């Protein structure tokens, strides 16, 4: 059984930048997203549209109605962020399930001996990837609060010296804002990493066919986690832009 490591492994250096296997896979996912965007953009401008355009249109439309039910009339400002979170996380989760991810290994010199590490690793199975997404969601939530409430009203939620109870509540608000980063990142990382560990263990317990139902489960989990991440961001945004 391959050794399971919690952190992503370093595979090569690119001009002094440590490239880990999770970054390496996420570059492919980025390229895939850019290609899809290019074709969608091209079809949107053309007069004769292909079937691909209508499929994408349908997916985006259902996402739009879903988020519209949460953020209401501010949907046109927030939709690009929320849909980008959804699509990006979903592709990242699913890319970890592709054949070859985790099973293709390369040798990396480590001191005297050579270490065999996986060439690819799902980006959300690395805590850094999930943490980056969580921090960007956190910044988006705070930015939404400042933009739609004004800086003065926004800061009054956290620092309020009108009476002692409000002062203490503001302190609790600050803690709850920062705990969002932790819960976002650990939820995503935990689900995806646990899925990869589960698939590895099942594949080595029963070599044939037993992985199949778990693969289906992981596809569903990848979708649900993307949905949960973007929906929670939407819910927190709608809380943060509302007046008290």
């Amino acid at each position, binding site marked *: 059984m391959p050794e*399971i*490591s*919690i952190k992503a492994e370093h595979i090569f250096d690119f001009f002094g930048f440590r490239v880990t296997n999770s970054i390496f896979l996420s570059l492919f996912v980025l390229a895939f997203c850019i290609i899809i965007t290019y074709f969608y953009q091209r079809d949107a401008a053309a007069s004769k549209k292909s079937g691909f355009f209508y499929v994408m249109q349908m997916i985006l439309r259902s996402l739009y109605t*879903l988020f519209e*039910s949460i953020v209401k009339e501010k949907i046109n400002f927030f939709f690009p962020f929320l849909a980008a979170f959804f699509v990006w996380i979903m592709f990242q989760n699913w890319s970890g399930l592709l054949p070859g991810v985790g099973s293709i290994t390369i040798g990396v010199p480590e001191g005297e001996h050579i270490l065999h590490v996986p060439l690819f690793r799902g980006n959300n199975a690395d805590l850094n990837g999930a943490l980056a997404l969580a921090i960007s969601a956190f910044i988006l939530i705070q930015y939404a609060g400042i933009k739609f409430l004004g800086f003065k009203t926004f800061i009054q939620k956290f620092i309020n010296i009108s009476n002692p109870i409000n002062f203490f509540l503001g302190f609790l608000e600050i803690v709850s804002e920062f705990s969002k980063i932790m*819960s976002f990142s*650990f*939820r995503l*990382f*935990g*689900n995806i*990493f*646990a899925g990869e*560990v589960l698939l590895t263990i099942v594949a080595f317990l029963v070599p044939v066919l037993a992985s199949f139902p778990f693969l289906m489960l992981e596809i569903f989990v990848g979708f*649900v*986690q993307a*949905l*949960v991440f973007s*929906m*929670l961001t939407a*819910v927190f945004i709608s809380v943060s832009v509302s007046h008290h």
Partner: protein
Amino acid sequence: MNVEAVKFVTVGLTMCIGVIFPALAIGNIGSKAVEALGRNPEAESSIRTAMILSLAFAEAIAIYVLVVALILKFT
């Protein structure tokens, strides 16, 4: 008991105790959602979204436990 044995027992107990409460929560959420669906079948889509959202919250606790157990096991 040596250190290795204590580690295995701790991993087992972490999962064992930590998973009780999320399991109760998930069962409760499911039963309440079905109850609400029986009372008001037209509201299916909004019940489903609320249910999945709260399921994810409850499941996240189990996932934290799992992450702690994995860290104990593999480091």
